[in-house]
């Protein structure tokens, strides 16, 4: 998950708004913070303030939820002004560490545009890909039971219809399927079927 943290640097009084990928460790000493947790690279943010511990808090994400855990129980932190040792963070929450107040914003997430589904393809449209049960799955084995599934190329079933697909229109008022000759003339023949593209267009 990507988050944007914004705060005023206590030494330079400068406003800072960098983008981080979770997990994010915050502390006073870079080398005191872990470089890696459970195989995930940790973004390390150093805040040079006497009231900040060497390794003060860790922000992680689990199931699209942002969690913050104080690593130094004695120093703790404040979430929206309340003293806490751990808690969850929502978009716009204020996290106070030492004398530094950090505003946490969830970065606009990108939507997965991979094609998923077995019988008919559609866009995944999920915002979190980690452990995505759909887009990580391969259906090769099952497609083996219908060789050429999703292809309507030359010599295969339905090819003539597929080649002229742009000429067909369905009128749902009358229930009729119309064929437009004019379009057939201007239609450019495609050599190969882009299965996923066609399946996904809805």
């Amino acid at each position, binding site marked *: 998950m990507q988050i944007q943290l914004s705060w005023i640097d206590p030494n330079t009084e400068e406003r800072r708004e960098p983008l981080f990928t979770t997990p994010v460790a915050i502390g006073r000493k870079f080398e005191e913070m872990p470089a890696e947790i459970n195989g995930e690279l940790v973004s390390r943010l150093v805040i040079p303030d006497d009231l900040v511990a060497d390794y003060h808090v860790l922000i992680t994400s689990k199931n699209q939820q942002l969690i913050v855990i104080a690593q130094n129980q004695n120093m703790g932190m404040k979430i929206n002004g309340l003293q806490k040792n751990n808690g969850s963070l929502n978009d716009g929450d204020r996290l106070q560490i030492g004398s530094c107040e950090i505003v946490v914003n969830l970065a606009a997430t990108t939507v997965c545009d991979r094609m998923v589904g077995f019988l008919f393809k559609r866009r995944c449209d999920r915002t979190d890909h980690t452990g995505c049960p759909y887009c990580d799955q391969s259906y090769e084995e*099952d497609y083996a*039971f219908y060789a050429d599934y999703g292809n309507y190329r030359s010599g295969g079933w339905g090819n003539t219809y597929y080649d002229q697909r742009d000429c067909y229109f369905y009128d749902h008022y009358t*229930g009729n399927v119309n064929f437009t000759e004019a379009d057939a003339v201007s239609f450019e023949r495609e050599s190969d079927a882009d299965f996923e593209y066609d399946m996904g267009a809805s």
Partner: protein
Amino acid sequence: MPIELQKLRKHSIYEDTALLDSVTTDLDDIVALSQLAEIKQNKFGKQAIYYFAGAAIVGIISFGLSGIASGLLNVVAFLFNLGLVGLVIAWIYALVMMLKFRRLNVINYRYHLTRQLIEMLARDLDVKELFHLQLSFKKGESNENKTNTIDHPYKSGWKIDIYENQWLNMRGRFLDKTRFVLTITGLSKKQYGWKRGSSGKNKYKSKVKSGGLDINLNLIYPQRRYGAIKVLQNEVKEAINIPTFSFLRGLKVTDKSMNLTVRLDPQLAESQEKIYQTIVAMFLSLYQVLNLAKMLSKETV
């Protein structure tokens, strides 16, 4: 809803209409239950053998003792008899328990196949829609599955019972609003009658013959999305691509629905893998048609 064990034990049938999650949880419960039953059945089966052997040995000894019974030996013989009674009771108990668990130890390939099918279908299922599953673990030749009785064509006095055992019925709705009904029906025949044996006595004989499986898939789809199927109607048959070990029994196509029936040979009727492959091929065959129909079904504006 937790699965009703009593019901499963009594009727050997699972039936529910619920969200997919709940149905799969139930299926997993049945798997666990059946595996446990298998273990218990074996355990009590072994116990029954031990108790029986023990009772036999004690029985022989006490019978021997009773012949030379006098004084102190009388007391020993009495104790042996007491032990014999105890062992016989234990033996009967173990037998009853074994039979009880045997009823719960349901036919494995049926739920494994069902689980496998759900996993395949779940990729396109609308999880917010209700899913219906009826899964029976009954053997085919029971009275309620009997659909017809006919006279034997050449054995006089003999009859043939015809059975149709629909042991799977699945219904659900895909994300494209298409509804599906999938059924698996085991077919079998039983011929029976009196036969004169070599000794001259009349003997009652019966013989069961499997007729294989009928797999039926019905798809009911939205016309708005797949309306152009009427253009392809006459060519649907060529798109059907089922495994070589199965054959097409029926195909009906209208602009609202497709119905496909495939027959599987008797020797494959209990093969989880072969049934699964056939069903996957059936779904893919019909959707090969639907996906093209969709491309031709753009609406006129």
